[in-house]
């Protein structure tokens, strides 16, 4: 099985513009930045949530706390896989009770990661509302989960993979669609 790049979905500039738009949408639809907090899902949701928070702080002049969530312990496939995945730390150093939380992830696919993320957040308290922000929505949902803020919706086939590459993690900045070929 080989992996080939089919096309670029977003350039570095387009990622920047998209995040800027998403930041404004989040503040607008959350009734301001008061009570707002962003939760980045490991791994690539983390730098995305930090970038969004920085933008919001810049134009809304409000302190938006950012937390990091690892969903490993909440996955629904742990009893079916052989070796247990490594657990990373969850760092949410503020009370989530009565907060307007926005979960931030790079790609929305089956919806299972987001289901796990919501379970993880409920263990920390009772947020007033949870919304979801993703850079790419690629379809193929297996659960009734939809995003409130979407960077770009992309039609994909089952064998394709959306790769979000971010400077902080991958040393480059773009989103590409790749395919697995036999």
């Amino acid at each position, binding site marked *: 099985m080989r992996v080939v790049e089919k096309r670029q979905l977003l350039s570095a500039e387009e990622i920047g513009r998209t995040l800027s738009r998403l930041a404004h949408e989040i503040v607008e639809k959350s009734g301001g930045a008061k009570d707002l907090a962003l939760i980045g899902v490991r*791994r690539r949701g983390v730098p995305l949530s930090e970038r969004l928070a920085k933008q919001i702080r810049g134009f809304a002049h409000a302190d938006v706390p950012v937390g990091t969530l690892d969903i490993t312990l909440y996955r629904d*496939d742990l009893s*079916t896989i052989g070796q247990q995945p490594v*657990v990373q730390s969850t760092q949410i150093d503020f009370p989530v009770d009565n907060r307007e939380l926005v979960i931030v992830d790079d790609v929305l*696919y089956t919806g299972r*990661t987001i289901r796990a993320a919501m379970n993880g957040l409920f263990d920390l308290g009772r947020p007033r509302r949870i919304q979801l922000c993703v850079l790419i929505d690629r379809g193929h949902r*297996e659960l009734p989960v939809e995003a409130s803020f979407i960077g770009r919706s992309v039609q994909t086939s089952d064998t394709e993979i959306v790769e979000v590459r971010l400077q902080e993690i991958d040393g480059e900045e773009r989103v590409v669609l790749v395919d697995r070929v036999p």
Partner: protein
Amino acid sequence: MLQRLSHLLGTETLSSEQIAFILDQAKPFQEFQRHPLKKLATLRGKTVALAFFESSTRTRISFSTAAARLGADTMALQAESSSLKKGESLIDTVRTLEAMRPDGIVIRHASSGAPEFVARRLEIPVINAGDGTHEHPTQALLDALTIRDRKGKLEGWNVTILGDILHSRVARSNIHLLSKFGVRITLCGPAMWVPRELEKLAANVRVVHRIDEALDGADVVMVLRVQTERIHEPALAPDEYIAGYQLTPARLRLARPDALVLHPGPIVRGLEIDSAVADGPQSGVLEQVTNGLAIRMALLYHLIGGAAADAPHPAKDRSNASD
């Protein structure tokens, strides 16, 4: 990445990479202890057998709490009520437990080597919760985690262990673990409890019989409980032990000013340790207890979790794979 652990029998047979992995994996579970809602469903449907053939309070509670917080069920066998009292052999007892299909078994036994004996005969993961005078690996792991947390790292410290080293499985597990990280270990206590041969146990181990010399320059002082129940002929009268080896505030001043004091518990105040030291700012005793939960949760997650060996269809699942 990491060679898959199938059992945890001792620290002697673990590599330093495996130990570092377990300590790293305990970190998210340390954070978890501060959650308002301390209940996961991660090991829902799994069962952990707790076979304590020797009485235990804190280790048994720690394991059962760790299992409960991960969502696993436990079945407990207690020494006092066990069929051992009726003459059943160890292997028959554990085979009976195994027939109830637990996903792992935690064993404490008065005989050194009992967990390994069981591990060779059962299909499920075995965790040693203390065997005779041999090993108590989860205690050494939680001690290492406490040292790493309080002092920033594990490597290179001077660690002094005080007490009855010869009969202590806690000391033995700690010596094997710490020596893999370049820790210089000083063992100190009455000569009949700290024979010179213990220096051969691992690298960087020295035996010192004078406490002042043993504490000089120590970064960590581990105080062991004087195990009156394990020693049938008290080799030393309590006041002699107190005079020679009790960790007092004055003696602790011989160690480094920021030296960390550890004790595996239960503490016998006024015997091996002075209350002012046990409750003082340098004591890590209560962190050790909390860290024990984190270590045991990490171990149960990695050893008991996942598909059972005889699972019919190891499902291929793309759903949680990150894109």
